[in-house]
């Protein structure tokens, strides 16, 4: 047990889908589910952190206030934060540090989104100083463009095949099939995946995550509070990593035109993506060899292979072998994305990193039903938000 542990007393989600309703509804549903799961009431909450959404106007930019208001103002302090895809982990980190400092006992963390159809697009207008706008204008560099570049690089460097990328999708579709919160509940075959149209070659439509509506929430408390409530062995958040890159960052990350130049200052020993889970392992005093499961950000099927290496499940170049061995499927040595991952959910940006932790919570309690990883005691999440946001949450029980 680490001195930085906080308890996860409640986890709740609104199912992912394309529901087309106000994002506030998804968040409130998730909060209510998490409160029920924790056996607590709204009046017990003394801090709220909302993960912001950029696609729902002003209420989305002040999500903490939006959800506190929707649940009924009680005068408690609130916070809102945004870190792109890493928003949820940053929200969890704000909650955790508040609890560890003794300034709060019961904190609700929530994120929800309503997304438009199709590609995620930049903010409108003539935004010639915004790299996110410029990459669409000058290059046509969509998010899948970057995923395609990474996937092609793996093929060239490590001999990854189109079949490997399809296998990831097939594995995750089997995992998510029974998940009541997943959007896509269909078991895919390799042939179906390989028959789907190319989007950013070598990646195909069924290998690139969609954008979804959804909401996820957690009730985090101090260990003392959990004990007082009679929960002696809660799932714990044992580490949170919200690291940023070290200059020069030599990976071509969204939404950049270039990497940093490593001509003057040498690149750090550990790449940005490698540093994300590493920081969580360091904090918790736990290593990848201790893991029972992992939830990683499969924005594309191929990206899951990168994560195997980035979170230390295998050495660079060995991810394809690890996948082919079957060890990352449920029943294997280290199941990855037992929830079904983004392949089954699609991305609801501010909710997604929270949803990853909801999955760890249910898995570590043994409540994950058909997708249960037997005897799971240690799990990690990993994700990266554009503009340099690392995100990893390590949970233990």
């Amino acid at each position, binding site marked *: 047990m680490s001195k930085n542990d906080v308890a996860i007393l409640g986890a709740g989600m609104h199912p992912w889908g394309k529901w087309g309703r106000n994002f506030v509804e998804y968040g409130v549903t998730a909060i209510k589910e998490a409160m029920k799961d924790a056996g607590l009431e709204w009046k017990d909450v003394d801090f709220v952190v909302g993960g912001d959404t950029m696609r729902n106007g002003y209420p989305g930019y002040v999500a903490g206030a939006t959800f506190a208001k929707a649940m009924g103002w009680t005068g408690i302090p609130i916070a809102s934060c945004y870190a792109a895809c890493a928003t949820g982990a940053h929200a969890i980190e704000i909650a955790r540090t508040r609890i560890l400092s003794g300034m709060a006992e019961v904190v609700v963390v929530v994120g929800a989104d309503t997304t438009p159809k*199709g*590609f995620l*697009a*930049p903010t*409108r207008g003539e935004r*010639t*100083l915004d*790299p996110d*706008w*410029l*990459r*669409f*204008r*000058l*290059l*046509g*560099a*969509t998010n*899948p*463009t970057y995923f*395609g*570049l*990474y*996937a*092609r*690089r793996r093929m*060239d460097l490590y001999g990854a095949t189109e079949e490997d990328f399809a296998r990831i999708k097939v594995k995750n579709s089997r995992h998510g099939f029974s998940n009541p919160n997943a959007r896509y509940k269909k078991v895919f075959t390799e042939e179906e995946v390989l028959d789907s*149209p*190319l*989007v*950013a*070659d*070598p*990646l195909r439509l069924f290998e690139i995550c969609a954008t979804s509506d959804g909401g996820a929430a957690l009730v985090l408390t101090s260990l003392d509070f959990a004990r007082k409530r009679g929960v002696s062995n809660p799932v714990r958040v044992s580490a949170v990593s919200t690291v940023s890159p070290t*200059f*020069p960052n*030599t990976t*071509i990350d969204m939404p*950049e*035109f*270039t*990497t*940093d*130049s*490593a*001509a*003057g*200052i040498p690149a750090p020993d550990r790449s940005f993506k490698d540093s994300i889970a590493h920081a969580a392992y360091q904090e918790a005093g736990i290593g990848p060899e201790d893991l029972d499961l992992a939830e990683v950000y499969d924005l594309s099927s191929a990206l899951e292979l990168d994560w195997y290496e980035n979170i230390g499940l295998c050495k660079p170049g060995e991810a394809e072998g690890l996948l082919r061995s079957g060890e990352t499927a449920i029943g294997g040595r280290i199941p990855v994305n037992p929830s079904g991952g983004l392949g089954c959910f699609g991305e609801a940006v501010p909710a997604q990193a929270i949803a990853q932790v909801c999955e760890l919570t249910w898995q570590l309690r043994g409540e994950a039903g058909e997708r249960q990883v037997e005897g799971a005691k240690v799990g990690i999440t990993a994700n990266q938000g554009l503009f340099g946001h690392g995100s990893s949450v390590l949970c233990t029980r």
Partner: protein
Amino acid sequence: MSTRKNRVPAIEGWIKMDEDDPHLLGYLDATSGTYFFPKDVSISRAPGHADAELTEVELSNRGRLWSYTTNHYQPPEPYVAPDPFVPYTVAAVELTKERMIVLGQLADGVDPETIEVGQEMELVLGTLYEDEENEYIVWKWKPVAA
């Protein structure tokens, strides 16, 4: 034959518009030996070098292909897509001297089936889109003729 349209850069200040010797224009922080592109802020992002003076430099117009991908779906605005939409390839090229990877579209007329990771590429000027009066020009990557 109609008169040729004006060739104007699709963005001001990023490109040396010389058909025979095109370059991307970046910054050099000589105190850390670090290059920057684009020139979005005139501050060195090398840690501890925020006071360094930046000089505008022409970046190398040759490098090695790091990876590439072809987009088969029309991206959202502000990309200006032809009607009907035409798939296009984005290439990532690593500049040896600057030790940086630079994205750019693959030059018109180059078949992406014929390029390979690791091969030498050169920077050329190409049309991104056009209207009644102008062709809007960006940098593109083209394989160096063998």
